[in-house]
Structure formats: structure tokens, C-alpha cells
């Protein structure tokens, strides 16, 4: 599952641009993920300039 650390995120939208599924959306000053569309590829968490996205295992 993709976890968004709101207190770290700088709401820049870089992750939105690389998400192959269009699962991320920057709503004004907060980021949202659509769990229905996210395929947990981890690309967004890899490229985040601040490290605000984390892939956590379901368990």
C-alpha cells in the first residue's frame, strides 16, 4: 500500500507526472492516491524529492 506522509510532502506534483496509472492527484495543498488504480509499482516513492511516499506491505 502506498502511504503518503503529509508532514513531509511539499505538494510539488513530481510524483503525479510519473505515475503510469494516473492514480495520484494533487488537490491544492495535499496529495491523494486512488487505491483502486494504484498498482504499487513504487515509481512515485522512488523519485519523490523529499521521500514523502512509502510503499508498505499489506500485512
Amino acid at each position, binding site marked *: 500500500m502506498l502511504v503518503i506522509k503529509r508532514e513531509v510532502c511539499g505538494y510539488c506534483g*513530481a510524483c503525479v507526472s*510519473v505515475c503510469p496509472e494516473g492514480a495520484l492527484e494533487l488537490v491544492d495543498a495535499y496529495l491523494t492516491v486512488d487505491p483502486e488504480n494504484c498498482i504499487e509499482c513504487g515509481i512515485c516513492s522512488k523519485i519523490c524529492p523529499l*521521500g514523502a511516499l512509502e510503499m508498505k506491505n499489506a500485512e
Partner: protein
Amino acid sequence: MQNKYDVLIIGGGPGGAMAGKAVAEAGLSCCIIEKRPAIGAPVRCAEGVGNEISELVDLDPKWISSKIEGALLVAPDGQTLELNPEMAGNEVGYVLDRKIFDRELVWKAANAGCDVFVKSRASSAIIKDGKVCGATIESGGKTVEVYADVVIAADGVESKFARWCGIDTTVPMAEIETCVQYLMTDIDIDPGLNAFYLGREVAPEGYVWIFSKGERTANVGIGISGKMCKEGKRPKDYLDAFIAEHFPNGKIIELIVGGVSACKPLACTVADGLIIVGDAARLSDPITGGGIINAMYTGKLAGEVAAECIASGDCSKKALMKYDTEWRSSKMGKGLKRNYQVKEIFIKLKDEKLNSIVNSVNKLDMEIFDTKYLIRELVKYNPWLLKDIGTLKRLLD
């Protein structure tokens, strides 16, 4: 907000603002919607532009933080190369104050007659019979549908609107430059110079920049390839290390984060009823990451073409293709194509090779700064360049 405009513009950055102004000046109704509460803030930019910006807008001194007279390139081994205006063909540039600049551009659009709504976000596209006809907009807790003959997507790096219209705007992971920047004060800089630091240790597949914001103040930032970014080696980690070394006593008064695409532009930047401009069309420069002027130029062109097509009653993809064809054959379009290929060569260079290039350029007689001379001399000192030189030469000619 009306429920129908001739042109609806998604995004109030430099691309959207120039589009709105062009449409309004052509006498048509238009509206810019911007999801953020304030135009231009937070800034996601190092704010550097070349002086060709004055071909697009009359520069107001209020928008300018500093005037730039040259650039300083620092090689991985610390050798420096100063590029001054005489060499670059008297080119100078500016570091803008985008909080003011972006707002004033939107202001100009509004004064020309364009409607503007902030804190209003497009949340989906309205598509009928395969044609883009408008957008669903969330504004102040209400959801409204706004129709238009042409929608201009100027929604920046996120570029979701075109995606909702079925166009894949995904930036490949290796081609996003992931960036962090501090606005710093109380640091020793040359206020007339912009500096660039290269090298795998400093900024893998990217660079550190110091863009002067005036006396003792600068945007100090970094962009690295998304491919090189990982836990513990994120742009912020590299930047903090750079600052600890170069500006340990500087004060950070703003944190800026962002992504810049260094990929090829979208394969096609129009569809039935839709034009895509600026960063949303992936038009930032693959080498420098600069995209302000490209967004302004394509925004203006999009507004003009939309107005023409509306006047002639045909807003099909075929009619709007005029926009795509025109920017691709423009100086900007050709430059993007060339710089993409140059980037592909330079990104693979090892630090020693970069050092060696900078070293040999330093030996050149800068009075005769023409491409052929440059290449001949570079090859003399760096014979290994021959492998790539065919391509390079073709690109530079």
C-alpha cells in the same frame, strides 16, 4: 463562472496566462481556472530566463530579482569555466521573481477580458463523441460543468487534464529531474553570475544551480535524475551536503520542491477540442530544465490558434494541428529536439570526461568562439569524443 466560454484554460501558470491574454485580445470569451489559492505561490522554479523573454512580454523591473551577465560552470574536479556575454553572443538573462511575475501575467490576461477563478480545480474532462467539450470544476465546495469550444490544458508538470482526455502524459522515471531548492540569504555569491556545478558526486545526471536573487541571496537548488534517486540519496540529501560544504552559515528562508521533465515532448499536442501547452506538453528543455519561456510561447500560440479555429467554426484536431506544426518547426521546437539528443550524449559522460572537456575549453581562444573551431579543438584534446562527434556536430551545426 459562466457555464460556457469560447475557450477554457486549465492552469494559471505562465502558459495559461499567455493563452488567456491571446484569446481575450482576439475578442473571444475565456476563463482561466487555477486550483491554488494564489497565482505563483508556492514557487516551483529557479526563476532563470534568457533575455529572449522580452520578445514575449515587456519586462517590468518589478518582476526581476537580478540581471545576469554570465554563467560559471564548475566541473567535477573544481575547475571553473566562465561564460561571459561576449562569448555567448552577448546573451544575458534574468532571475525573475515568479511570485510577482506569474501574478502579473494573469493580471494582464484579466485586464484583456479573460475571467479568472482561483481555488477552482478541474477534476475531469467532459468528452462527447470523442471531442473535448469542457471540464468538471470543483470550486468552493461546488461542482460545476463548464463547456468550451476549445480547452487549453496548461496544468503544468502534473498534466492530468490531457490524461483524462486519453493522452498518455507519463514522464519516464529516468527522465524526471527531481528537484529541491532553498532560497538562501547571507551567502557569498557574485550577484551578476549564475553558477552550475556538475558531477556524479554533486548531482548525478543533473546539476546544482546557484541563481542570484541579488546581493548575498540566491536560489540554491539541485535536480537529479529520478533513476538516481533513492532513500538516503534524494535531491535533498545532495543539496544539504553541498550547502554544508559551500554555505555553512547561509540562512534558508524558503524550501522549494518540484519535478521537471527532461523527456521528449508529447507525440501530439492537440486533440479534437484540446490544445496542450507548456510543461503539460513536456516542453521544458531536456538539458537545462528551463520551461518558462517555452510555456509562454506555446500558451500564446495556443490562444491565437484557438481563436482562429473558433472564428472559422472548426475546432477539430486537424484544424488545431496548426499549433502543433508551428511550435515544432519554431526555433524552440528545433532547440528541444537538438537538446534532447545532446542530453542523451552528455548524461552518459563520466566525471573524468567532463573534467577533460572543461579543461580543454579553458585552453581555447575565446575570441574565436564558433562551433567548428570548438569541435575541432575539443576533439584534439579529447579524441574519445569522436565516437559521438558526428552526432554532436550535426546537432550543433
